[in-house]
């Protein structure tokens, strides 16, 4: 017998259940003035002889065992969610934070280097003395360095994109934790763990991008031009 398979339980209990249904119908008919007491008595007698009712305690024990096995499976599922989903989400979130802070530190180091480069260009220019051609060369060099400053804007944009991804991970983590808690029983003693911290959504733009800047700026200028006179 397999308690999780009702088709396999029913053949043993079905004759008794059928007799019970017939008895109820007969009693209802009797109450409404239809039928006779004799038929109901016959059904009762048959029900008393039905041997499969003696298997009921065994069926209950089997079902209890099946429920226990199902609960163990659920606990295992909860642990699987904990170890393979929540822990990995938290690890990924932590790595994103590390990437963000490392990129920021690197960008600051590069800015420091560019500051020093500009100072060196100024120093070299002074040492070289005034000459139109030399001055133009140093200006070109400054323009190159300033271009590099601009390139480092990627750090701010990437940081905002990472904040958006991190917020998504926090949302998924909260949903997974809620799902895991559904499987929890106080007796299991498995804690949900500390939740991930999300950045204030007002502090970043998850749609920040470095792509198609010129096209997007043109659209912005057009929209700005249209909106401004309307004020």
């Amino acid at each position, binding site marked *: 017998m397999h308690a999780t398979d009702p088709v396999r339980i029913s053949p043993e209990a079905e004759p008794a259940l059928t007799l019970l249904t017939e008895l109820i119908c007969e009693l209802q008919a009797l109450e409404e003035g239809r039928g006779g007491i004799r038929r109901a008595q016959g059904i009762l007698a048959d029900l008393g002889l039905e041997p499969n009712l003696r298997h009921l305690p065994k069926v209950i024990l089997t079902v209890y065992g099946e429920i226990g096995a199902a609960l163990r499976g659920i606990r295992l599922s909860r642990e699987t969610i904990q170890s393979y989903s929540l822990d990995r989400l938290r690890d990924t979130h932590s790595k994103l934070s590390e990437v963000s802070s490392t990129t*920021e530190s690197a*960008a*600051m180091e590069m*800015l420091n280097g*560019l500051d020093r480069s500009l100072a060196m260009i100024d120093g070299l220019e002074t040492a070289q003395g005034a000459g139109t051609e030399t001055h133009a060369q140093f200006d070109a060099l*400054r323009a190159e360095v*300033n271009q590099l*400053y*601009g*390139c*480092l*804007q*990627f*750090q*701010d*944009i990437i*940081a*905002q994109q990472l904040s958006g991804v991190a917020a998504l991970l926090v949302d998924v983590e909260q949903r997974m934790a809620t799902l895991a808690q559904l499987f929890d029983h106080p007796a299991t003693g498995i804690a949900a763990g500390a939740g991930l911290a999300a950045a*204030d959504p*007002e*502090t*970043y*733009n998850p*749609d*920040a*991008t*470095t792509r198609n*800047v010129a096209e*997007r*700026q043109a*659209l*912005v*200028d057009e*929209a*700005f031009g249209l*909106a*401004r006179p*309307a*004020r």
Partner: protein
Amino acid sequence: MKCLVVDDSATMRRIVVNALKSVGMAEVAEAGDGQEALGKCDAAIDLVVTDWNMPVMGGLELVKALRANPATAKLPILMVTTRGTKEDILQAVEAGVNNYILKPFTPQLLKEKIDAVMAAQGAA
């Protein structure tokens, strides 16, 4: 001419300051959020270049606060941000922004926008 650069990213502040200096704007003050910027917006400031998304007080709130104060109501404000939807633009215009630049920008574009804002201010 003195400019106030408002951005919560220290990297971005340095980049904007460098861009401003490279186009000849030598005097630059800095603030990390709108609240700090309000404290630094004195009569010496001629132009505000602000980000939108910031903690404590965002750029849009800063613009509204500056426009609500008679002492800073006419101060030229340039928004430099990653936000570029039509809805964003409309909100910025409604708040009182004088011009709008998307990140990443070039120093040349920054200069063009500053020139346009200051020319319009002079004409007003």
